[in-house]
């Protein structure tokens, strides 16, 4: 390609992907084209040199070899003891994944990448075990034969005529950090076999005859070499795309159709090869028809396996719902910009008569501009129709009665017409109408078809000469009968078609509406709990299952919320056991689905799917499916769509929370800065007075007379008292504002609080009349004593400072329902209404002089408000009659327990 300069974003992406790779372990595959080329030997050899270089190397699992040189090479390493699993009476040795993770070496050797684990291991496939080792940062060496690669499976099969069952998906091979080809000449290999270095004698003979023919080996070797070259090529391109920031796709888009046919697997693999060869995007489409539900179990299982295969090969799965498969495919192809379609050709002998056009022909007809690649089917013929349309003998009584009823009605109308001598043709049309109605109203084709036949017979019996016999005189009548039969058959089948199409459309609409509803509901959900609830509800509606929702809080997976589909039948306790929770935790840490119907921990009771956010898993969803009812394809794709919605909702909520926190923090900082500024400002004046007065006394002490000295000292003393009160207030602010909004409270008697407050009020209290009126001696409140005392001090001080000498200040405490009310009333000038609203704001002083004379700071009342609010009460100000002000606050009454 052109020598474009890499974009900065591209470079960044490359570096970050490299970095993330560095946290992962490195996988090295020793790759060979047949058994016996020496892969395990090469692996052990490499491990020895690594060990000599100082690496911590451990043997995870080595296949027991009879080859003596390999066995001797395996000495000298620490090894992880095998896990013994009993299976049908035999004890099997399996790789112990948990022991390996615990041991946590730098490098571990695990033979046979394609191995399938016995039941009881966490993963079904060994390559999943190795994936977990790599995620944990452990480097792995492993071995693999070419025939185990998924995409090459049928090619190898066609050469060797042996189908290999244990397969490794291609992405595992391609993602490996290093692949080392262990290569020897086929002749040398055959020699080794003969020398019994590989297998024992009778095994060797068999191997030679079938697998190890020279031609086979040569072909396999070529495939292996080509596959490695392919991997190298792909690596070059992927690094190029990382740097250039654009995905390297041509405009090609390959589509493959999924079906339940056994040959579909080959078609999918071929399509995957096309996609990688053309560098095209790859989609697998499944067209769900009304008959899909009627597939028998084997077919359904095959369909699911084909789906899994397509996914493994990197296809995006799409589902559409409709009656006409060819039409749906062509519509999807048009809408998604598909350039090439890959399909299989069924080998069914087409009928000569009543030959329906097969799928390929229909597709070419509806989308003539599409390239269609047909993969021939070498398998025995398979007719899905036979399996699907098992004439469901759905004989239910209402439909039967309906049929009989309508036919009877037509007959009666016919007789009516006949009696009035209308045209014969009209009676026929009535019967045809009847057949139409029957086909529409009944649930199975059989009623429509049988009523077609019956109507002809009835017509013949009742209305054709000779009447009341099944004979006909007129030679024209057979033709009439034939035409009538055809008309009614066509009518009935067309009506049924229309009905099923309407049903299909309804199902489609229902599903779409669930998705739309989900989107709407989740958008409105603001609380995390309501997100959980609504998500579970919608999922449950869609899948018709109960749902387990595991939320994530503080980077830990929480216990699940259970949404029961039927509240009368809650989920049995075993579905929310510790073991099930452990599976969900595994999903959370490994970002992959697990549970029943997957390859990981398939013994679990539910299927667990991760809700993946950008960097972390946001939640885990558990779907308790019993073995028989696995998820259908269309359910899977809709589920995918829903999980997207849930991801968005949760991420939006998290972002909101973060934003709120940030805002709160900023607000707090602002307040703090304001407070400090105001304090510094307000401190200056009293400090000036104190230091000034003291310095005068020091320097001119003897020159000043007694009264003046006394006055100066009094000033100093008063200012210092004022400062003390300010400090108390500031400390009170910090106690509330400490981040923890919970204050420490004790039960206290209101009378004690008031007495304490009065001890600390301003010295000038003697200039006023202060009275206390307590309506009940045992008024008790649950408070932080110092804070409430400070509140009262502030309010009383305010009254003292802002009212003229001689005024009366009354502290009145009484009970009102569950509240204690404390009101401090003065008979001074009063506070104008406009000030009343703002008087509790910080830094607000009445008459709002920013001057220094009224050393308000304005902190006092706003602090009182904070304190009272923190206790769950309210503070207020109102006018006193006839003049003055009343400040009041409420506190929750604490019931007094008199224990005698």
């Amino acid at each position, binding site marked *: 390609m052109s020598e474009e300069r890499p974009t900065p974003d591209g470079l960044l992406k490359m570096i970050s992907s490299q970095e993330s790779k560095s946290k992962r372990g490195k996988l090295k595959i020793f790759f060979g084209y047949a058994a016996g080329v020496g892969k395990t030997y090469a692996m052990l050899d490499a491990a020895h040199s690594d060990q000599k270089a100082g690496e911590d190397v451990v043997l995870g699992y080595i296949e027991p070899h009879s080859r003596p040189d390999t066995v001797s090479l395996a000495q000298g390493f620490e090894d992880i003891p095998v896990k013994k699993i009993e299976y049908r009476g035999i004890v099997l040795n399996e790789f112990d994944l948990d022991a390996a993770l615990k041991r946590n070496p730098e490098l571990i050797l695990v033979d046979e990448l394609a191995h399938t684990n016995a039941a009881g291991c966490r993963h079904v496939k060994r390559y999943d075990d190795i994936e977990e080792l790599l995620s944990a940062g452990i480097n792995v060496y492993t071995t693999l034969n070419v025939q185990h690669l998924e995409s090459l499976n049928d090619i190898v099969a066609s050469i060797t005529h042996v189908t290999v069952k244990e397969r490794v998906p291609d992405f595992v091979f391609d993602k490996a950090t290093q692949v080392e080809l262990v290569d020897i000449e086929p002749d040398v290999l055959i020699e080794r076999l003969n020398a019994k270095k590989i297998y024992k004698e009778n095994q060797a003979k068999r191997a030679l005859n079938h697998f190890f023919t020279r031609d086979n080996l040569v072909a396999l070797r070529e495939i292996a070499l080509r596959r490695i070259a392919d991997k190298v090529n792909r690596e070059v391109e992927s690094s190029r795309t990382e740097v250039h920031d654009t995905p390297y796709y041509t405009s090609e888009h390959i589509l493959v159709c999924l079906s339940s046919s056994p040959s579909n697997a080959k078609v999918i693999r071929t399509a995957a090869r096309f996609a990688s060869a053309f560098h095209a995007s790859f989609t697998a489409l499944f067209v769900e028809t009304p008959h899909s539900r009627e597939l028998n179990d084997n077919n359904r299982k095959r369909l699911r396996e084909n789906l899994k295969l397509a996914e493994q090969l990197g296809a995006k799965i799409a589902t559409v719902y409709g009656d006409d498969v060819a039409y749906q495919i062509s519509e999807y192809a048009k809408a998604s910009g598909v350039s090439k379609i890959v399909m299989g050709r069924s080998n069914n002998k087409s009928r000569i008569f009543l030959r329906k056009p097969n799928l390929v022909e229909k597709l070419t007809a509806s989308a003539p501009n599409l390239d269609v690649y047909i993969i021939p089917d070498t398998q025995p013929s398979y007719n899905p129709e036979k399996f699907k349309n098992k004439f469901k003998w759905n004989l239910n009584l209402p439909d039967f009665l309906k049929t009989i009823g309508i036919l009877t009605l037509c007959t009666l109308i016919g007789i009516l017409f006949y009696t009035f001598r209308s045209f014969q043709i009209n009676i026929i049309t009535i019967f045809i109408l009847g057949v139409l109605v029957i086909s529409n109203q009944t649930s199975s084709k059989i009623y429509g078809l049988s009523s077609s036949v019956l109507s002809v017979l009835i017509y013949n019996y009742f209305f054709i000469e000779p009447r009341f016999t099944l004979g006909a005189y007129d030679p024209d009548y057979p033709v009439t009968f034939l035409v009538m039969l055809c008309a009614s058959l066509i009518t009935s089948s067309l009506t049924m078609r229309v009905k099923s199409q309407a049903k299909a459309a309804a199902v489609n609409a229902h599903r779409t509406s669930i998705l739309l509803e989900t989107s709407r509901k989740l958008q409105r959900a603001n609380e995390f709990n309501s997100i959980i609830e609504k998500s579970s509800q919608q999922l449950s509606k869609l899948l018709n299952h109960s749902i387990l929702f595991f939320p994530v809080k503080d980077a830990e997976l929480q216990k699940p919320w259970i949404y029961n589909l039927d509240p009368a039948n809650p989920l049995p306790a075993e579905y929310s056991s510790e073991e099930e929770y452990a599976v969900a935790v595994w999903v959370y840490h490994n970002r992959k689905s697990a549970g029943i119907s997957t390859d990981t921990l398939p013994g679990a009771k539910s299927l667990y799917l991760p809700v993946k956010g950008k960097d972390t898993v946001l939640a885990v969803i558990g779907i308790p499916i019993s073995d028989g009812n696995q998820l259908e394809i269309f359910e899977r794709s809709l589920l995918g769509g829903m999980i997207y919605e849930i991801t968005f909702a949760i991420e939006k909520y998290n972002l909101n929370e973060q934003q709120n926190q940030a805002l709160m923090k900023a607000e707090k900082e602002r307040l703090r800065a304001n407070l400090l500024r105001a304090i510094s400002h307000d401190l200056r004046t009293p400090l000036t007075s104190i230091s000034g007065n003291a310095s005068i006394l020091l320097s001119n002490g003897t020159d000043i007379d007694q009264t003046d000295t006394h006055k100066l000292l009094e000033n100093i003393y008063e200012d*210092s008292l004022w400062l*003390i009160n300010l400090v*108390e207030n500031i*400390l009170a602010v910090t106690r509330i504002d400490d981040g923890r909004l919970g204050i420490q409270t*004790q*039960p*206290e*008697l209101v*009378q*004690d*609080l008031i*007495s*304490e407050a009065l001890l600390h009020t301003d010295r000038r209290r003697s200039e006023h009349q202060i009275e*206390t009126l307590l309506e009940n*001696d*045992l008024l*008790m409140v649950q408070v932080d*004593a*110092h804070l409430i*005392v400070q509140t009262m001090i502030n309010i009383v001080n305010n009254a003292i400072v802002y009212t003229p000498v001689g005024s009366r200040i009354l502290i009145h405490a009484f009970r009102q329902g569950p509240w204690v009310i404390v009101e401090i009333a003065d008979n001074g000038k009063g506070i104008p209404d406009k000030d009343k609203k703002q008087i509790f704001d910080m830094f607000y002083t009445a008459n709002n002089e920013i001057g220094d004379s009224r050393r308000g700071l304005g902190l006092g009342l706003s602090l009182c408000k904070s304190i009272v609010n923190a206790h769950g009460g309210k503070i207020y100000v109102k006018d006193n009659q006839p003049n003055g002000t009343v400040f009041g606050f409420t506190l929750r009454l*604490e019931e*007094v*327990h*008199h*224990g*005698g």
Partner: protein
Amino acid sequence: MADKILVLIVEDDKAVRNLITTTLNASRSYTLLTASTGESAIMLAASKNPDIIILDLGLPDMDGMDVIKKVRTWSNRPIIVVSARSEDKDKIDALDAGADDYLTKPFSVEELLARIRVAVRKMNYDNRLNKDEAYFENGALKIDYSAALVSVEGQEIHLTPIEYKLVCLLAKNVGKVLTHNYILSHVWPNPAEADSSLVRVFMATLRKKIEKDPSSPIFIQTHIGIGYRMNRIQEENK
């Protein structure tokens, strides 16, 4: 008291120490010792056996609590703690560890002198009377332990069993500030019944019964957030 009372002042801040010494010197009834660290305080307390100790809790070398505990192993003399923190926890802990009274900085000189007077009275009371006497007298308040009778100014007061227990506890510790917890654990030993609101409720009812004017009590002094104290009434009014 012809002898001057020996007061040990433990305070690391020079200015505050100066304030206290000047104040006490002015009243001419005290001899003063000073220490600025906990270690030297303990040594002086051991060697000179002062009558009253004024202890600052914020000492640089050790926790004031340890000083109290050490001194209390041999001496029962009054200890007044001085604390700068506005939270009550350290004062409560000090009182529970054996201190008798507390002062919060900033304190006024009057407060200081008043506290010291209380401490002196307690000291004299402790010296004179045998604690196990059957009879308690404090100003107008008289308690006859053997007859379980309480009277104020000659009038018999009817107290409930709990109130009686309370007043006896205060009397036995006259002059000392008792924390809520201390009172709870002595009067309501059963933890199932113990509820901190009980202390306040019963103190209020007791006060109503024995004080002439409950809003300005003379016998029982409330220390909000800390506890209560029975004041030693001086026969000669100062």
